[in-house]
């Protein structure tokens, strides 16, 4: 068995062990298996990375199993390890391991401890299948699998109807995207004759371009990406997904799974390089999503909801980078985002832990002194996402802004303006969150205040590691590392002069956001209250998330329910299907009732009928034959 297969199978082993034996063998066993398997997988991934380096960066391919043969095409469970996979696999196993460790503290009191770790390992298995798969088919299996794991973990506390419904919503919304993905795969297979991603890229970038519109394929795959990566119009599931345990939000709904769409587009860049229309759509959707989610995040009061919308917004940034052809930059943002967003979510988890389950930031305040480690790490990650140099977020966001302006594949001043204002909003709402949570007067109940305590070392240790990574992670230039594989787009002529303008602008934006938040929410937060009062209508719209959920409910859910009930159930099922069956049964019954009168039980009559029949047939034969 090759090393790549081993990476994938280790978490699966963890899932099986914890799922089958976890409840019997106790928490020590569950912790050892649950954290051990990802840690070993991380070590093996590093080994593979060193092998990759040793082999002069030639991709490592490995076939684990030949699934089936159709004619000349074989469908294999094959793995592929190149620079892009290496970055993704290291993020998934590395951040994954940290979050498993954090979970041992966070979920310590939960009675379904073993089930939790089993699900988490299952998620890692599918996620690794997704990033390591060589063909779209394997990627798709992983893609569906992470959806399943996400569903299981969002609805982890399924006793609460609201949480179970959130899980269902995530699953169903993702299915809509998956339909597009599947169609894309069909089109690719019928046009190129293979699902192997390296070969597809080759086919589209090589001399003989396949007889299919690259934009069509690109758009279909992008529909899949909008589902998984929470872009307009399919982003609605992600904020609700916060119903799951907080470490799950950090791992699945911030750091890894939701970036699968970004990975898919970057991996299939050969298609998108030849699909300017699809790339334009990606840019537009990404920019709109980023701006819209950022405005919603301004008016949310649930600490996890703010972070959820900020995740949607940051994913929008990544898609803008993909749209303008800067695939390496998008992966760079995936990488830095994984650190600071995981740190933020885990910090939020630590806050919620300290607040005895309270998530409303209106009822927090003044926590900085009481839980100092959480505060420092949270503040650092906030500064990182806001883009304050030299933290990780600054580098990746700055590069996205730069290519939004200067890329010769769709950069423009308008795009820069949208992204820059989104960056400003990001800095503003993140510092607002920081202020309302950690500064000012405590606003919680006396009972809760009494119980506030710093989290155990298993949690704070992870926070510190992630905060350090968010601080220094940006110095590793991922776009440069990926450049031999994912070339950066050209710069429009005459734009070089503006490079320092963008850098300076992005620093200024972050600081203005910080200052704005300090001004509005510092002290008693009076200016904020005044603004809120004078723009009450706007605030209500933002607080209710532009009423998108309500709109979907009116426009899609209710018509669907009505059609299901009035047409499919009442007409289709009851009238047509049941009616036909009941009608046939009644007909048979009535006919049998009539015909049974022939059965008189008198043998004489039967014999007479036989005679009559014989005579009749003889007569008929005589006349006709």
């Amino acid at each position, binding site marked *: 068995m090759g090393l790549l297969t081993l990476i994938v199978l280790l978490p699966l082993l963890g899932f099986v062990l914890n799922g089958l034996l976890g409840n019997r063998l106790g928490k020590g066993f569950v912790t050892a298996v649950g954290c051990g398997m990802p840690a070993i997988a991380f070590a093996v991934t590093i080994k593979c990375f060193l092998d990759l380096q040793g082999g002069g960066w030639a991709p490592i391919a490995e076939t684990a199993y030949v699934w089936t043969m159709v004619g000349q095409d074989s469908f294999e469970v094959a793995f592929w390890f190149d620079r892009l996979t290496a970055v993704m696999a290291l993020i998934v196993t590395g951040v994954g391991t940290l979050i498993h460790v954090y979970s041992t503290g966070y979920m310590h009191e939960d009675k379904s401890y073993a089930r939790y770790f089993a699900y988490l390992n299952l998620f890692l298995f599918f996620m690794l299948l997704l990033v390591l798969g060589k063909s779209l088919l394997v990627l798709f299996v992983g893609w569906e699998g992470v959806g399943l794991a996400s569903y299981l973990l969002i609805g982890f506390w399924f006793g609460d109807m609201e949480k179970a419904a959130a899980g269902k919503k995530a699953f169903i919304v993702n299915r809509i995207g998956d339909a597009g993905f599947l169609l894309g795969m069909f089109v690719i297979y019928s046009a190129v004759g293979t699902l192997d991603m390296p070969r597809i890229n080759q086919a589209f970038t090589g001399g003989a371009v396949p007889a299919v519109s690259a934009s069509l394929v690109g758009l279909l795959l992008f529909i899949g990406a909008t589902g998984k990566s929470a872009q307009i119009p399919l982003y609605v599931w992600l904020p609700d997904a916060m119903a799951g345990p907080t470490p799950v939000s950090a791992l699945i709904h911030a750091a890894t799974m939701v970036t699968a769409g970004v990975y898919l587009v970057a991996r299939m860049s050969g298609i998108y390089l030849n699909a300017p229309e699809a790339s334009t759509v990606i840019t537009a959707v990404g920019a709109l999503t980023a701006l819209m989610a950022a405005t919603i995040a301004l008016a949310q009061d649930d600490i996890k909801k703010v972070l959820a919308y900020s995740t949607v917004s940051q994913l929008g940034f990544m898609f803008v980078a993909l749209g303008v052809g800067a695939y390496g930059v998008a992966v760079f943002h995936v990488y830095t985002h994984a650190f600071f967003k995981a740190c933020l979510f885990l910090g939020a988890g630590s806050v919620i832990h300290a607040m005895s389950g309270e998530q409303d930031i209106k009822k927090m305040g003044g926590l900085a002194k009481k839980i100092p480690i959480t505060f420092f790490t949270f503040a650092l990650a906030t500064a990182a996402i806001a883009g304050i140099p030299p933290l990780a977020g600054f580098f990746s966001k700055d590069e996205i802004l730069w290519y939004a302006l200067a890329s010769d594949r769709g950069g423009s001043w308008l795009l820069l303006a949208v992204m820059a204002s989104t960056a400003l909003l990001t800095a503003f709402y993140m510092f607002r969150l920081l202020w309302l949570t950690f500064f000012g007067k405590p606003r919680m109940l006396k009972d809760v205040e009494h119980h506030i305590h710093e989290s155990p070392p298993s949690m704070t240790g992870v926070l510190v590691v992630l905060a350090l990574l968010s601080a220094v992670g940006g110095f590793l230039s991922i776009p440069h590392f990926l450049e031999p594989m994912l070339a950066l787009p050209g710069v429009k002529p005459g734009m070089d002069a503006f490079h320092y303008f963008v850098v300076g602008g992005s620093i200024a934006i972050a600081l203005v956001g910080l200052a704005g938040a300090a001004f509005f929410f510092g002290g008693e937060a009076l200016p904020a209250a005044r603004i809120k009062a004078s723009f009450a209508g706007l605030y209500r719209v933002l607080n209710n998330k532009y009423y998108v959920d309500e709109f979907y409910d009116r426009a899609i859910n209710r018509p669907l329910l009505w059609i299901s009930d009035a047409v499919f159930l009442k007409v289709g099922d009851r009238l047509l299907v049941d009616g036909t069956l009941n009608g046939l049964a009644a007909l048979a019954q009535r006919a049998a009732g009539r015909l049974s009168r*022939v*059965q*008189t*039980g*008198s*043998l*004489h009559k039967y014999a007479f009928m036989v*005679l009559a029949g014989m005579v009749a047939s003889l007569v008929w034969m005589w006349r006709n034959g």
Partner: protein
Amino acid sequence: MDKVQMLQVLAASLFALGLTGVIIRRNVLVMLMCMELMLNGVNLSLATFAHTLGSAVGAVLVFLIFVVAAAEIAIAIPVVLLLVRRKRTLDIESYSDLKG
């Protein structure tokens, strides 16, 4: 009317007699006997034709009918016996439990 014709008329009369018996008599045993009569009418007809045409096929068919008739009566008599035990009568009209 030559001999063959007379034999055929006799065979047809036997068959008709048997059929009439099956249709109008109520005693099960008599009905069975009438059925034998019908079979033998057919047998006679077959034997006559076999003789006329000088072919063995008709004669073979007669033997087949003998065998079938023997088998049939071997089943029919026990059935009648069981019916009589249950109903204490040979009247066919009282065996009508399965009427619709």
